[in-house]
């Protein structure tokens, strides 16, 4: 039985706090972009994830994601966090080269933060029109029926995608593709914001968006480097890769934006950084720092261009969750098939550019495809049922008045 490592425990404790902090960060990244009458609604939809998802995770979510229930879903062994108080507990599949040197309950807490922020990402797409009551229901159901299974497939050593050899260091599929696809499914049902696209809907406070970006970047070090689950060379590599990709993506986005629109905007700089962070998420612990720069540059440019998709197909993904998280997640997950390098991480595989041939790329494609199909279908059904029963969307008066007043009887500023 392995000793707990204090240094690794210290780092994962820190990383857990960092990832928790990302959800308020995301709330402000989004909140600054909406109009002033909807900002509290947006903040609340995000912060509320910290409440509801956490409790559900403790009751069943974690157990369904990491319990020993076969390839497709966990089980109820750890429901109500049973046995988790035991410091010597070994989680199913975490043995040999995957053995945990941190307390199992810390791993559970760390993973909980991923479960919280994933659905929060969706709220950017449904901005300004999602009924709070319906979000509460959607959130709870989605967290159990969509998040836990996908997390099991990819993160748990018992999961089919993990065993198939698909790589996802910190959640390119589980978090970003998953949330991005779900966002798409929901906006197809909820429809466009009134006035979109004719009426301009400028961000009410870009400084909020910028501080949110700073918090996200900061927290992402916990998200990616923490996924090494130890304080070691791999964590250091993941950290610098995360940073380099964010930096390069900021440049990539700004350059393309400047060429196409004539200006490098602050929102563009912020959006590019986030796009890079998304794309590097699956790759962080498997590629070199120089590969991270290339991945970032590409992600910044690709995600900027992907914003055109919603116009082309005429859906209203208000804050571009599809362009940044779905497209960014796919970009990273597939590029990993090219850049993965076993010299960086011997538990990984070599990508096309490192002599590994197309096998990894194929597995990545399977993981991407499986996540897209599953998440889209299940999310669509859940959202449809809620829409038909309680209604996903606020009524016209409420939308004019704003979510802050209509949903929460508050005004943000006075």
């Amino acid at each position, binding site marked *: 039985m392995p000793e707990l490592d204090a240094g690794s425990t210290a780092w994962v404790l820190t990383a857990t706090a960092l990832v928790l902090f990302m959800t308020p960060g995301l709330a402000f990244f989004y909140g600054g972009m909406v109009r002033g009458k909807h900002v509290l609604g947006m903040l609340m939809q995000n912060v509320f994830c910290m409440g509801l998802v956490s409790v559900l995770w403790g009751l069943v979510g974690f157990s369904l994601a990491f319990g020993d229930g076969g390839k497709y879903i966990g089980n109820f062994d750890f429901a109500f966090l049973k046995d988790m108080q035991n410091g010597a507990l070994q989680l199913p599949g975490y043995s040999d080269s995957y053995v945990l040197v941190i307390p199992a309950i810390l791993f559970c807490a760390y993973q909980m933060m991923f479960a919280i922020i994933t659905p929060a990402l969706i709220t950017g797409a449904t901005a300004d029109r999602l009924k709070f009551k319906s979000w509460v229901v959607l959130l709870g159901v989605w967290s159990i029926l969509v998040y836990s299974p996908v997390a099991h497939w990819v993160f748990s050593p018992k999961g089919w995608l993990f065993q198939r050899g698909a790589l996802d260091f910190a959640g390119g599929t589980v978090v970003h593709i998953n949330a991005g696809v779900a966002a798409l499914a929901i906006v197809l049902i909820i429809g466009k914001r009134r006035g979109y*696209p004719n009426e*301009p809907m*400028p*961000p009410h406070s870009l400084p909020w968006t910028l501080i949110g970006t700073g918090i996200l970047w900061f927290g992402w070090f916990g998200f990616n480097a923490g996924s090494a689950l130890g304080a070691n060379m791999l964590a250091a590599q993941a950290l610098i890769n995360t940073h380099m990709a964010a930096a390069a993506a900021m440049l990539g986005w700004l350059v393309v934006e400047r060429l*196409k*629109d*004539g200006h490098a905007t602050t929102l563009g700089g912020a959006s590019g950084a986030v796009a890079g962070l998304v794309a590097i998420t699956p790759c962080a612990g498997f590629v070199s720092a120089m590969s991270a720069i290339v991945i970032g540059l590409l992600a910044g440019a690709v995600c*900027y261009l992907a914003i055109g998709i919603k116009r082309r197909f005429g859906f209203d993904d208000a804050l571009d969750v599809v362009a940044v998280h779905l497209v960014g997640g796919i970009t990273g997950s597939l590029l990993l098939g090219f850049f993965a390098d076993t010299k960086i991480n011997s538990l990984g595989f070599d990508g096309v550019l490192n002599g590994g041939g197309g096998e990894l790329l194929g597995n990545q494609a399977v993981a991407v495809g499986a996540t897209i199909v599953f998440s889209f279908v299940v999310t669509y059904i859940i959202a449809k049922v809620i829409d038909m029963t309680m209604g996903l969307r606020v009524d016209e008066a409420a939308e004019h008045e704003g979510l802050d007043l209509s949903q929460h009887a508050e005004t943000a500023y006075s």
Partner: protein
Amino acid sequence: MKLITAIVKPFKLDEVKEALKGAEVHGMTVTEVQGFGRQSGHTEVYRGAEYQIDFVPKSRIEVLVEDGDVQRVLDAIIDTARTGKIGDGKVWVVPVEAAYRIRTGEAGEDAL
């Protein structure tokens, strides 16, 4: 008594205020407003989408003056607020039937 209302460029406000002091005007009331006119607004970019903002920030100045002072005050405003560039704004005069100072209840010219 008359009410003079002027729409001027915000960065001219302080100069106008000083000029009015010079013209022995003892008070004024200023409002931040949005102006639409010949001066075109500006274009903003938001994630690849351009949109046009027609309105331009302006300062709206209200001054109550005795009939005899109207011309002097108008001149002071027009001279100082003018940059010669489009968008300098307008001034207009409206008749006032009565005016009071709330503190004292004084009416008419004494209210100023």
